[in-house]
Every structure is written in C-alpha cells, then in structure tokens.
C-alpha cells in the first residue's frame, strides 16, 4: 500500500509553494513513498513514555535587556531585492 498519493504530493507541493509538473508529481510520489515507507520502521519502537528531543543541550531561555539599537540601513536592505519602489519591496499583484 502506498503511503502517499499523487494528490497528496500535489497538495504538499502547494503548501510548500512549489509548482510541479505532472511528471515531477509522479517522480516525487514514488520517491517520497519509498522514503516514508522506510521511515515507518520507527513504529517498531515503543515511544509511549519517551519525551521528544527538540534541542540536545539543557538550555533555558536566554534573556537580555531590551536595548534599542539602530536597524540596518534601508539602501543596504533593498540592495538584493529583485524589485523595489519608494523604499519598499515590490511584488506582483496579490489579487487578480
């Protein structure tokens, strides 16, 4: 039984903001299915009472004084922008 369908792959691609062709959807379905099937070996382990690890060191929140400092200069920030206008990033129309 496959773990992920081509429809799911297309949905995931949409969530990840990736445009994929029909052929790519087929290829990724096959590959992701193999990887997910492989990953299901983790189900052999009983982890009912095991806490999850999100960070390997026993660190607490790191606090500091909230001191205002100058931000980055606008011309520097915009230097790499593909498109800009009036000191702002410019993007294509959001609504049709």
């Amino acid at each position: 039984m496959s773990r992920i369908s081509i429809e799911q792959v297309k949905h995931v691609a949409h969530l990840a903001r990736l445009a994929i062709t029909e052929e790519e959807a087929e290829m990724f379905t096959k590959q992701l299915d193999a990887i997910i099937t492989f990953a299901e070996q983790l189900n052999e382990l009983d982890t009912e009472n095991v806490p999850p690890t999100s960070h390997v060191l026993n660190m607490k929140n790191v606090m500091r004084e909230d001191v205002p400092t100058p931000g980055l200069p606008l011309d520097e920030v915009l230097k790499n922008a593909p498109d800009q206008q009036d000191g702002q990033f410019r993007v294509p129309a959001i609504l049709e």
Partner: protein
Amino acid sequence: MSLFDHRVSELHHLLHKKEISVSDLVAESFKRIAEIDEKVQAFLTLNEEQARAKAKELDEKLATEKEFGLLFGMPIGIKDNIVTKGLRTTCASKILYNFDPIYDATVMQRLHEADAITIGKLNMDEFAMGSSTENSGFQLTRNPWDLERVPGGSSGGSAAAVAAGEVPFALGSDTGGSIRQPAAFCGVVGLKPTYGRVSRFGLVAFASSLDQIGPITRTVEDNAYLLQVISGLDPMDSTSANVDVPDYVSALTGDIQGLKIAVPKEYLGEGVSEEVRQSVLNALKVLEGLGATWEEVSLPHSKYVLATYYLLSSSEASANLARFDGVRYGYRTDNAKNLMEMYKQTRSEGFGNEVKRRIMLGTFALSSGYYDAYYKKAQKVRTLIKQDFENVFEKYDVIIGPTTPTPAFKIGEKTSDPLTMYANDILTIPVNLAGVPGISVPCGFVNGLPVGLQIIGKHFDESTVYRVAHAFEQATDYHKQKPTL
C-alpha cells in the same frame, strides 16, 4: 614542495622570521587555484583582489609588529553557506545566484579579527543537502585523489580545496556528516564541534537543531587552532553555549595512556566494507600500542538514525527554506502574473530536485494529521539515540569507528536513488542527533583512496577528541600522503 605542506604553526613561524610574507601565502593559494581548480572545481567565487590588498596591508603591519596571532595572514576557504559581507554567497543554489550579503557571519568576524584572509567561497551540495556535492546548482567538484570520484558532501568543495593544496584550511558545515564525510573521502581532517560550540549566526540554516560550522584542515593541530578562533558564546545565536572554551592545542600531548575506547558493534557490521573495517581495526591496534584500551559496545538504536534524521532535518529545512520566495533577495521568476504564481515559479525554477524533495518530505511530516506519526515520533526516537550515547559515555572516554562505510564512490553512482545516497551517512548522522563532537582523521588507503577514522567525544569535550586524533596522527603517516594532480 608547496608552502602549504607546512603546518599553520610552521607558516606562522616563517612569517615571524620574515622568511615569507603574507603576500607569498596568498599568492601560493591563487597560483595553485590557477593550476588545478579547472580540474577540481572546488571554488565558486574567488576573492582575489581583496585578498591581495589585505595581504599587502598585513605585510606592512608585519614590518612593525612583533606579536601577532596564529591565524595572522593565513589564507582560508569558506563554504558557500556562510555569509560573507560583500562576497557573493549562493549556498550553491540558483535561488541565491546573485546574493551579496550585507553582514558577516560571526565566524567570519572572528576570522577577520584574527587577520585570516578569505581566498574564496567553496562549492557544496545545494543548501548542504547531499553527500557528494553532485547537488550543486553550479558545478561538479571532483575528488583530488581520483577525478572520476566524488569529494563527498555537502562540504565537498572545502575538503577538496584543502586536499588539493589550494588553501591550508577551510570552514565547512555539518548537519549529518557534511564535514566528516568529505574529510574522510579527501584524506583530510574534519571536525564537527559540539552543538552550540560555534555560533550559527550567518550560517544559512538547513536544520537548525543539527547544523554546526567546523574546520577542515591537513593536520589535527591546524584544526585545533582554527576551532580556537571560531568557538564560543555569541549573543547573536541563542543556541550558542555559555561554556568555557579551553586551550585546544595544549590538549595535544600525545599521551593517551589509560584512555578507554568504545567501539560500537553496529559501526563495523553490515554495510561497512571489509577494507574499511580492516583500516579501523588497524587504527585501534595503533591506539592500543599507545596505551589505550578498547571494548566492543552497542548503540542499539543505530538502525533508526537514518529515518529519524531525514524526518527531522527535512522538517526543519521545510520551515527554514520558506524564506526563499523571490521577494527580498535572490532569484525571481519572470513568468508570473500574481504573487502566488511568483512564489511557486521562483521556488520551482530556483531549487534543485533534492531540495524540493526534502522540502516536500518536511512539509508532509509537519502537516496536520501526520505531525504526531512522523515528526514527533522522530523527536522521541532522537531521545533514545541520544541516550545510547550517554550510556556509553558513562564508562568510556571516546567512541571510535569508521567515518563512512566505503571510500569515495564514483560520480553518478548513487544519484538515481535518494535512499542509497542517504545510507552513506549512517555513521555520521547519530553524532549530530546526539549533539556531540566528532572528528574524521585519515587512517588508511583502499585502492589509492583515503579512509577516515571517526573519533566521537562527550558534549564539549573536543579536547579529548583532538588529543586522541593527534596521538594517532603522530603515530602514523597517512596525513602526509598527498594526491598527485
């Protein structure tokens, strides 16, 4: 004979005695690059004009100053996922083909303060996702020991440049083996520090809970000198650890009398080639001869590390790589009528297939209905893997095994099946999952290809890792071998 046959401390000494100048060192790098980089293809971007100007400036300083640091005037190569102010940083991805960083990574600031000289930016697998540098969006880096073979990855450019004598040392990054595996394949020394030892500020994030920057060098001593400069707490990285940084070089005593070594049976079993196994057993004999003892142990959750790693690292990557959307920097498609199309086309045209595959795997593992079954499950298994290491380190000083199951494979040999490529990292991944430090040092040759010995230590105990690696290096001459190019 190249200047870079000398250790960094020897070069430092030559500078002191005024037998060489900083300009000589920088010229040596660019001369070697001009000679052989067409074959090796390690560098993506060169910093020649600035490097030569900086060398002149430092030579003037050298004329008057008596005391200067060990890295003063030393040429260094930087993996292209570490941001360098004013020097193009691409992560070997088309999506950042023209990115000109407006700030320096913390490690770069520290290198500048030490007066090291950046020679250029080194090729890698796109966004550090890969084990062969074949996933670069720009060029194919070749292994200096055999140009038909991969240099390993993802820091393949860094390891190849050091092995080929283009720079005395380089920085790489390691998320699942990306420093140690290419170091093993190219016959050089590569260390992944303890998670939190080196600031990640300015390292373009792949998997934030696993990524670490570390040194790739010709010798263990050079490695220790470089780590010394880049280590330590950084207010700009809240995961950098507030732990004292010891003097690493003073740990290189050559004395490992009474050292207790654990050798996991899972690291010499199925999947590891007989020749690699033999090289590691020979290395253990050398260490025994130096007064260490070793015993076989078990890391019982070893078979689960690949699955755990790919779920966690891909999940983190899917979030981290959301920022590449064509709005603020990098590539933007010309073929979009509205914002949503612009996002999708930009990302589809900008990312390669391995990156897309991992973003999708991560998006799936984090998506509603699958989060507990995949992502959270993997986080729980990570706890078990980490505990395996803690248990062994209660009784032993270091864990030793091979760095990779086989020596360098052929270009194109593993590109068709992602799982086959992933399996190559089975011995390095657990170190990242546990957050402990690990080094790869040369321990033999199989058919003319280098083999790496992996030495793994306790959290923040890079000193012991270095001490063992150095003692082994002094007792052998594998690190003195050089590829003929």
